[in-house]
């Protein structure tokens, strides 16, 4: 009898192990192992061909060379701005889908948000280039209207990078926001209205506190996606984009300095971890609550 229960328990554990195996193998082989290898790489220095010694030189270079940490700070700040802009634009969209649209209208609006993602990011970004380049659609239109004297170059500005990043990130902000706004009981809004609140007080006291986990979740996802984005800043910002992922790319690919690239990679990881932690502290949210919303 006891044996039978023990066997059953063992079977259950085996079943669980088998079900989790693909995910665990994927996690270990493709994420943990490469990261360990990169960590080792970043803490060594080449003293002669094929000769390496443990060292902190890679990290020292980052702090000594102003270009690197300037680009690093710039990437962080622009990503934060892009996240804030995405939140500002996504909030009314999510509100419309969750609270104002009736029946199938909400689903339809959701699909409208989703449609751009049927096309690959490269194609989407190239689309922006066609619109914005000097010989493109928008400059020609502006010149035709007489807003500008002739076609102007709209690509390769920081604002252009932000436009591209916000566009790419919008859906990832809208989804968690819709989820958290849909769960907000309308009678809470009415109760606040009834008790004398105006629109702004309702937003500040009822809607935002309720949606805080969704807002934080959306911001974390968008910030990470933006920080680690390579394609959009490179294509829309051109040579001036100075995005930190480009520095990593050029260390690995152009300069073949894997040690330096690995160190940069870890610095970026540290940055996103720190920003997420800071964001959670600032909004008073718990990581587990937020992750349940994503």
């Amino acid at each position: 009898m006891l044996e039978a229960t023990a066997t059953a328990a063992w079977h259950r554990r085996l079943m669980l192990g088998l079900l989790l195996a693909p995910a665990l193998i994927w996690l270990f082989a493709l994420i943990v192992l490469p990261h360990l290898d990169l960590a080792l790489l970043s803490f060594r220095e080449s003293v002669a061909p094929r000769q390496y010694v443990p060292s902190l030189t890679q990290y020292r270079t980052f702090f000594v060379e102003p270009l690197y940490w300037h680009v690093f700070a710039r990437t962080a700040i622009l990503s934060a701005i892009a996240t804030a802009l995405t939140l500002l634009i996504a909030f009314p969209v999510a509100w419309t889908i969750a609270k104002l649209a009736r029946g199938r209208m909400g689903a339809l609006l959701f699909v409208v948000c989703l449609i751009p993602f049927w096309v690959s990011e490269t194609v989407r970004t190239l689309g922006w280039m066609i619109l914005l380049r000097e010989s493109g659609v928008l400059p020609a239109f502006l010149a035709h209207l007489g807003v500008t004297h002739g076609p102007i170059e709209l690509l390769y500005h920081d604002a252009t990078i932000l436009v591209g990043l916000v566009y790419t990130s919008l859906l990832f902000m809208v989804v968690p926001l819709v989820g958290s706004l849909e769960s907000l009981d309308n009678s809470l809004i009415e109760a606040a209205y009834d008790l004398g609140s105006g629109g702004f007080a309702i937003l500040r006291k009822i809607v935002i506190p309720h949606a805080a986990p969704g807002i934080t979740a959306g911001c974390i996802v968008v910030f990470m996606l933006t920080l680690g984005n390579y394609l959009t800043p490179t294509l829309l910002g051109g040579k001036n984009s100075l995005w930190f992922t480009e520095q990593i790319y050029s260390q690995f690919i152009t300069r073949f300095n894997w040690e330096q690239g690995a160190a940069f990679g870890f610095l970026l990881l540290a940055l996103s971890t720190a920003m997420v932690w800071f964001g959670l502290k600032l909004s008073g949210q718990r990581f587990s609550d937020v992750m349940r919303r994503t």
Partner: protein
Amino acid sequence: MAALSSATGAPPDLEARAVIKRFGAHVAVDNLSFSVARGSFFSILGPSGCGKTTLLRMIAGFIAPDAGDIQIGGRSMAGVAPNRRPVNMVFQHLALFPMMNVGENVAFGLARRGVARAERNRKADAMLERVGLGGASGKRVDELSGGQRQRVAIARSLVLEPTLLLLDEPLGALDLKLREHMKIELKQLQSAFGTTFVYITHDQSEALVLSDHVGVMNRGHFEQLGTPQELYYAPATPFVAAFVGANNRMAGKASAVNGELVDVATSAGWQIRARRHGPVATGAAVEAFVRPEAATIARTSAELAALPGQMVHEGDVESLLFDGANSAVLVRELKSRFEFRIALPQTGRYADLKVGERISFSFDPERAACFAAPSAHA
């Protein structure tokens, strides 16, 4: 419609004048006029879909009437937003703010009015004290029981000293025992604060127990507006007779009309006698109502012979509905097979009644109501 202004001559706290609200082709509130006197407990009673919620939301200001005017404290509310009205509402599911503690919930409205923090905390604590929740201000909303939440919701509204407190079936979500308890508590709170309460419910017992006046609402208009006693003992329409309190309802034809009394032949072929409410013509379709407690039960017809002017009927006990003081018996009338409900006397004299037993019963025709059957739309 009856004016209910108090004798003091003060303007009524709530007055509706020919209020109409349509949703597409559906008329939710149909040309409704009434007034509610200061300090009274007024209930709007009706089945779901009768328009009572629409009416309440118009008073609160969440929707605007298509026509007519709503006045609160003698002031027209046309174009006044909910947050500017001297009205507060207790929502059906209370709508306490889960992101705030009890004290913050109660102080919420005061904060919106710009009352200083120390002052609003003092007021909120005093209000919680008055509703019997002293010291609970630091608690989270989900730490409270259903009844306590109810009191927080009322405190949150009353702390703003509204002219009118609207209550949207707030007892609906509570279990039966608590509901009975909260009924009494609501009544006591209302008389302690003296605030005018407008209460909507589909539960006739709530309306009867709590209210000074009740408007029975059906299809967007009031069928009757009066005290609970008037509704119960002198229903104005068949709808009120059927909706308020338990009633035996019999449809049939008026076979003879003798002054106030009508002989009714029910469609199942049973002869009864009932008092006329409104004009009834011989041969017309009628509806008769007899309250279970208006009927007297006896083991032999001889016991009932002493009651003058009453027809004696016979039947078999179909089922016994024991409920303490509210016990009743369902009797299958012998000729028509009509199922008739009779309240058992509280003496316990018929406690040994058995299913299948042959009994006699009668009722005073003065206490049975006969209405001309409502025309085809019913």
